[in-house]
C-alpha cells in the first residue's frame, strides 16, 4: 500500500490528529533538519513536539547519520531544552552502532577507518586499534602512488563514513585491503546525496558504492539507509508491529524511503533537505512518498 499523496499534519481535524497519535507506539526520529537545523539550533516547536510524544507515552529513539557530532554532543544539545529528558540509549548514531557491532562480534584486529576525527576517537576510546592517518596529499611520482596504495600493514576491517579529506588513494588502499576476503567492510552514513546549503552535495554513499563496485563486495551498512541498521532498529521496537512505528525525517531517500521499506509509517518535515516541490515531483506510489508531511515537527502539537 502506498499513499498517492501525503496527508498534511496541519490540515488534520482534532479527531484525525487523535487517530494519528493512536496509530503508533514507537517513534524513530532523525535529528539534523528535524529537531535542529543542521549543526545549529533547535527548530522552533520541535522541543514541544518531542515533549508531546513523550507525554503521550511513545517510545522515542533518535536515529542520526551525523557522526561529526558525538553522542555526547547530541546529549548536550538535548539537555539545553529544560523540558526534555533524553537518555543516551535513545540515540542511534553510526559511529556508536559500528562500535557496538565490533564489540558484539568480538573484533580484535587492526582497522582502516575513513571517517572524521570524532568517529575515529570513539573507536579508539573503545579500545580498537586504527591505522595511522596516511597523510601526504600531493602524490608526485608513481613510487609514491604505489606506496600510498599498497603500503602499510594489512588490516582486518575497513570502515567508511564521512571523511572530509577522502582521497583517491585512500579509496584505492581500501580496495586493496578488501581483496582479503577476511577483511570486514563496514560503512556508516551512506547517503548518496546530503542536503547542504541550497541543494545537495555528494554524500559518503557515493564513495562507499564506488569501493563496493570496485571490489565486488557489499558493506555492512550501519547508518541510514543500510540494511544492517534496519535489522538493528527492528530489534529496538521488538514486539511492536512495523505499522505501529512512525519514522520522522527530512530526507526522502535516507529517511522516508528507508523507513517505508521497513513497513513503518512515515512523516516528512520540510525543515531540512526536502521541499514541497520535491514531494510533488514524486509519481503516485513512489517508494519515497511519505504518509504524512508537515512544515515542521512542531506542527504535530496542533493549536
Amino acid at each position, binding site marked *: 500500500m502506498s499513499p498517492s499523496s501525503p496527508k498534511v499534519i496541519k490540515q488534520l481535524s482534532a479527531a484525525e490528529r487523535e487517530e494519528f497519535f493512536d496509530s503508533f507506539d514507537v517513534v524513530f526520529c532523525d535529528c539534523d533538519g528535524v529537531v535542529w537545523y543542521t549543526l545549529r539550533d533547535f527548530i522552533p516547536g520541535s522541543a514541544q513536539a518531542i515533549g508531546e510524544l513523550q507525554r503521550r507515552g511513545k517510545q522515542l529513539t533518535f536515529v542520526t547519520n551525523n557522526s561529526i557530532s558525538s553522542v555526547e554532543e547530541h546529549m548536550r544539545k538535548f539537555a539545553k531544552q529544560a523540558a526534555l529528558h533524553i537518555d543516551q540509549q535513545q540515540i542511534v548514531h553510526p559511529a556508536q552502532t559500528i562500535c557496538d557491532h565490533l564489540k558484539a562480534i568480538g573484533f580484535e584486529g587492526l582497522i582502516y577507518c575513513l571517517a572524521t576525527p570524532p568517529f575515529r576517537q570513539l573507536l579508539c576510546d573503545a579500545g580498537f586499534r586504527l591505522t595511522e592517518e596516511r597523510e601526504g596529499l600531493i602524490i608526485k611520482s608513481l613510487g609514491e602512488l604505489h606506496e600510498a596504495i599498497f603500503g602499510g600493514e594489512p588490516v582486518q576491517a575497513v570502515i567508511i563514513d564521512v571523511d572530509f579529506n577522502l*582521497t583517491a588513494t585512500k579509496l584505492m588502499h581500501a580496495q586493496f585491503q578488501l581483496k582479503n576476503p577476511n577483511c570486514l567492510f563496514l560503512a556508516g552514513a551512506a547517503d*548518496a546525496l546530503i542536503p547542504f546549503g541550497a541543494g545537495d552535495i555528494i554524500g559518503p554513499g557515493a564513495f562507499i558504492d564506488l569501493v563496493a563496485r570496485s571490489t565486488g563486495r557489499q558493506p555492512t551498512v550501519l547508518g541510514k539507509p543500510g540494511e544492517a541498521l534496519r535489522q538493528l532498529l527492528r530489534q529496538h521496537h521488538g514486539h511492536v508491529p512495523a505499522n505501529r512505528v512512525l519514522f520522522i525525517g527530512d530526507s526522502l531517500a535516507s529517511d522516508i524511503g528507508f523507513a517505508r521499506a521497513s513497513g513503518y509509517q512515515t512523516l516528512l518535515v520540510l525543515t531540512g533537505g526536502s521541499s514541497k516541490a520535491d514531494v510533488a515531483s514524486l509519481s503516485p506510489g513512489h517508494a519515497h512518498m511519505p504518509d504524512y508531511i508537515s512544515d515542521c515537527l512542531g506542527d504535530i502539537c496542533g493549536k
Partner: protein
Amino acid sequence: MTNKSQPQHILKLSAEQRRRFVDSFDRVYSDIDGVIYTLKVNVPNADQAYAALERAGKQLTFVTNNSARNVDDTVKRFAMANMQVKPEQIWHPAQTMVYYLQSIKFEGLIYIIASPEFKRVLREAGYQLIDGPNQFIDDTYEDLARNIFDKQPVRAVVIDVDFNLTAPKMLRAHLYLRHPECLLLSGATDRLLPVAKGVNIIGPGAFASVLIEASGKQPTVLGKPGRALGDMLIQQHNVTMPSRVLMIGDMLAQDVRFGRMCGFQTLLVLTGGCTLDQLQAETCPEHLPDYYADSVADFIQLLADIAPKAHV
C-alpha cells in the same frame, strides 16, 4: 563476411581467411599501453609488426586513454620501442578534448580534475582552468563550504586521471554541474586500471561515474569508448566505411567496445589488461572482439605468410 560469434585467433585462420582478413581493412587504430609497451617493458617485436602493417599499406593511428604522457613524450617513448611515429598519429584524451572544445567553439571557464600533464595540454591550447582545493581542509562543514562553494562561471567540468583526487574536488565539481549550461567532459573511462598481473586499482571511470550519477548529466566522453572520440576520428580521417578500420587493443570494455560502437573490426591482444580466460568468460556481446592474438607481433607471421600472394 562470415558470421563469427566467437573471436578467432588470427594465426588459426586458414590461408584464405587470412588473406581476406588482411584485405578487409585499410586503417588501423591501435591502443598503446599493453599493446606496444607496458610501463617499462616493450612488447617483443611489436615494432616489426607495425612496420609490416605499414608495408602492407595500412594507415596507423595510435589511440590511447593515457594522458599522463604528452604527445611529444609519447613520440620519444615510441622511439625507445624502435618505432618512429609522427605527433599527429597519436590521439590521447587531453588532445582530443582540445579538438572537441575547438569544434564546439567553447569559451568559458573550466574546472578540471586531472593530471598536471593533462592540464598543461588544455592550458597550452588557450583554455582557462581552475582546480582544487589542493590541500587538506579542516574537518568541519564550515571549511568544506568554503572550499566547494564558488561563484565563478564554470561552464565545463573535466575529469580524467588525478592521483590527487579528493572528495572536496568531487563535491565542488558536482556543484558547478548544477548550472544547466555546465558541460561534463570525461577522458579515460577505465573503472579499474591494471597496474601489474592480477593487480587492478580503481580507475578514473569509477570517479567519473560518481559525478554522472550525482548530477544526472551524461558526459561527453573523449577517451575510449566515447562516441565523441569516434566521431572525431572518423571525421578527421574521412572514414566512409567503418568496417574497413581495424581497432587493436588490450581492453574489452575500452578498446573492443569502442571499436564495435564505431562499426570497426576489432582485435584483442593478450599482452595487457585481459587474459585468455577473461576473454573466454566474457558474455557481453559489445565486449566480444572479432579476432584475438597472443600479441600484436602475431601480425609478423600473418603478413609474412600471405605476402607473396598479396603482392603478385
